[in-house]
């Protein structure tokens, strides 16, 4: 089995932020495949392999999830709650990192209560976002150990 690029689900409704994050990962030379999904419902559809995502070869489970808090339909918190109550350990154990512009304490606390593995606030300046992606790549993709059966 050849080692593939890690797959990161980026659940983010703002296409500008998607563009910035993609660029920042590139600039930071992080080798990962980033798949953006626009809202919580879409993410759940992907995770259970529903609709267009039924082919697990083409749409494997991600190594990590980067999710925004404020999303249309199901919010980032809803998505965390959904993951937490899944029987399938492969879903339940996916590391989830919040990446949002909300610094609201209530949002932060709720995210951790719902099992978020980390909470990152999007820096405004792009070079800082590159810096964040650099640290992120080193921490999560180089040093972090993953649970079994995810695609890293």
């Amino acid at each position, binding site marked *: 089995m050849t080692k593939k690029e890690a797959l990161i689900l980026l659940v983010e409704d703002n296409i*500008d932020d998607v*563009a910035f994050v993609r660029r920042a990962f590139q600039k930071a030379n992080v080798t990962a495949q980033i798949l953006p999904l626009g809202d919580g419902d879409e993410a759940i559809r992907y995770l259970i392999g529903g609709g267009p995502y039924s082919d697990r070869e083409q749409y494997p489970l991600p190594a990590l999830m980067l999710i925004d808090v*404020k999303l249309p339909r199901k919010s980032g918190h809803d998505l965390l709650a959904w993951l937490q109550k899944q029987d399938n350990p492969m879903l339940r154990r996916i590391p989830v990192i919040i990446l949002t*512009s*909300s610094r609201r304490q209530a949002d932060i606390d709720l995210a951790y209560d719902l099992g978020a593995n980390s909470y990152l606030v999007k820096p*405004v300046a*792009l*070079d800082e976002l590159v810096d964040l992606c650099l640290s992120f790549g080193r921490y999560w993709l180089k040093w972090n150990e993953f649970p079994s059966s995810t695609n890293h």
Partner: protein
Amino acid sequence: MISEETFRGLLESAPDAIVIVDQQGRILLVNSQTETVFGYNREDLLGHPLEMLIPLRFRHGHVNQRASYFASPTVRPMGSGRELYGRKKDGTEFPVEISLSPMNTSSGLVVTSVIRNVTERKRAEEALRASEAKFAGILDIAQDAVISVDDDQRIILFNQGAERIFGYKSTEVLGQNLAILLPKRLAGDHSDHVRAFGSSPEQARLMAERREIFGRRKDGSEFPAEASISKLTQANKTTFTAILRDITDRKQSEQAIKERTAKLQDALEQLEAFSYSISHDLRAPLRAVQGYSQILKEDYVQRLDETAQQYLSRLAAAVEQMDKLIQDLLEYSRLGRADVVLQRLSMQNVVQEALKQVDAQIRERGAEVSVEPEVPTVKVLGHFSTLVQVIGNLFSNAIKFVPQNRTPIVHISSEQVPAGARIKVRDNGIGVEPEHYERIFRVFERLHSSEAYPGTGIGLAIVAKAVERMGGRVGVESKVGHGSEFWIELATG
């Protein structure tokens, strides 16, 4: 047969005046109490007509009454239903009670009158009546309902307040069961409570302390009430007295306050949500503009001419200004609402942290910042991050408002004041005219164009609001062209 001596002894030891008269109304015998009560010597009385002991105005009538008594003599109290009066030797009158008993003797029918001076008793009765009238008067002017019930919960007292509150006349309810004053749904409960209270050792209790109670008016309508109840046990009979107040109005205003508080709470939450929206939604497109202009500058710099690059810089500066403005506004509104819990803070930590915030600015302008040695030893009552922001903003202004050709020199010092500690930040900047001393602490007040001195016009407003929330004062002293000294005062606890 008792002896004459024993008889005398009995007569003399009697507590009342005893006067024996013959059929002609002449006094045959008196005891010494008679002398005391009427003020005559025995010799003045014996053989004289009984009527001398009676007020003048009754004497004539008495002669006739005496005659009819002798016609059918019985043992009876005299003058039932009438007030009887005796007359002393000095002419003063006094109320009496008399009982009469006929007696046949060898010298014919005689009548023994036992006469009691009831002045004291009458006075006590009068005082009691006056006191009762006073009590009734108090009861009637009371705004509250005062209702007493007996052991069987029959109403025995119902004042005017009760009449007004319940809509019944007292004559309609006296003797009725208390249940008619209570909502039918609660009447059973209530009598259980009264019974329980009757057997408890408590003397008084506030009924509403335990639960909300309700009364029922004559028209059947219910009203919320607050009542206290007391019990009085006399001769094995217990009287319960309730003092009850209709609290409809109070309940209504409580309800109104509750509703208004809920509305305010709602408005506050909306404001909170609004602030959040501003922070998230308003800043998102701003960040996009900022990001793309940065990308253009970084990734496409070779393909842009100098003018385009200049425009990009202006674009970035405008966006940054707007972002700062939004952040400052959010911070200002947050300060107005957030809970500020005061703690004892070391100024050393505060100043250190504040210096970190303005580190970039210090380096950019090559500013010299000095801290007076005693400042780090000062302890003040404040909220850490809020105070750090206050000092940070003062540092930032002190560096910013210095002409470009001058090296900013900032000095922070402290002194003791009656209110606690005064922290002073002095600069060598452009200064502030005295007429602007107050204006500069208001939101959006700027004295200079943002080209000359960039800023949002909110920095000092945040300082003033923050210091106010920490219970302190803020002010400035300045000399135009030479510099300013901004100060804050906080309690030292």
